[in-house]
């Protein structure tokens, strides 16, 4: 019996399935996002210490969560490519990289905008902020390395190796607030560190952003599959013309 990953190994089957799933995931993300924004602005209180700026948390935490989750997904896809040679693993890794870079950028930016009124500074070179900045550079490195190499197979393997080496940054980010002194607050624990009145909006926004990412990732994967089909057809067309030219010359 085939596993789900084996069944999805066929790009044509993936295109059929993703075409069916994409509208539902997008709609669910949009509805949850609207509900989350309502909760964030109208149905949650200001913090007793941070005041209204706590509302930045409802976008900062989901972006930071996605920054790490997307990298873990890229590392998993890279493992799938290098070990199992799964045909969609490289498509998944390539499609996720720009999205991960965008969410990491947003986590840094919103964190910085939250930091100024709370800490008195936009930036400090402490462990949490610096390790997330390194994650952002890792994303840019993955994108740059892939576009620097013309041979797609070599580019896939090299970016997969870089992604797997870079995965060591994830535990450093996660535990940086425990291992070193930092201005950043400890990791968000939904059950104890967030007041119940703020837990629901944060949870709804986190799920909404996660669904939003999966919708964009599916769309980006579909685009990448189409791009590879176009490239294959162009190569096929050129090879056909060369064959005809050779036959004509004989």
């Amino acid at each position, binding site marked *: 019996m085939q596993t789900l990953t084996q069944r999805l190994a066929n790009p044509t089957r993936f295109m059929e399935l993703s075409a069916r799933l994409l509208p539902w995931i997008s709609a669910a993300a949009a509805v949850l996002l609207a509900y989350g924004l309502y909760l964030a602005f109208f149905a949650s209180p200001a913090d007793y210490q941070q005041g209204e*700026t706590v*509302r930045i948390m409802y976008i*900062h935490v989901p972006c930071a969560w996605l920054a790490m989750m997307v990298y873990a997904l890229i590392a998993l896809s890279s493992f799938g490519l290098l070990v199992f040679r799964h045909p969609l693993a490289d498509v998944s890794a390539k499609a996720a990289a720009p999205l991960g870079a965008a969410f990491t950028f947003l986590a840094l930016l*919103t964190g910085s905008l*939250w930091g100024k009124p709370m800490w008195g500074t936009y930036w400090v070179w402490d462990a949490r902020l610096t390790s997330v900045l390194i994650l952002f550079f890792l994303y840019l490195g993955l994108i740059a390395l892939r576009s620097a190499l013309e041979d797609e197979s070599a580019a896939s393997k090299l970016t997969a190796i870089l992604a797997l080496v870079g995965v060591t940054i994830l535990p450093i980010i996660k535990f940086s607030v425990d291992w070193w002194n930092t201005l950043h607050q400890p990791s968000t624990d939904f059950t104890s560190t967030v007041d119940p009145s703020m837990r629901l909006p944060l949870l709804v926004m986190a799920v909404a952003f996660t669904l939003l990412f999966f919708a964009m990732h599916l*769309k980006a994967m579909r685009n990448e599959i189409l791009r590879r089909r176009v490239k294959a*057809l162009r190569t096929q067309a050129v090879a056909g013309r060369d064959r005809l030219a050779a036959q004509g010359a004989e």
Partner: protein
Amino acid sequence: MDLGPHAAFIWISYAAVTVTVTGLILWLIADGRKQAADLEALERQGVKRRSSSPGVR
């Protein structure tokens, strides 16, 4: 809605997320349309995938 003395920080944060995410979505839609149009143009020229099945994009 009164967001207090730091309202600008809150609005800029939400605006940055909105602009970036909207930009990503528009880019993905435009890229998808371009790839589909390129594929259709090639197929119209008679270049067919060996494993192509009708109606699958």
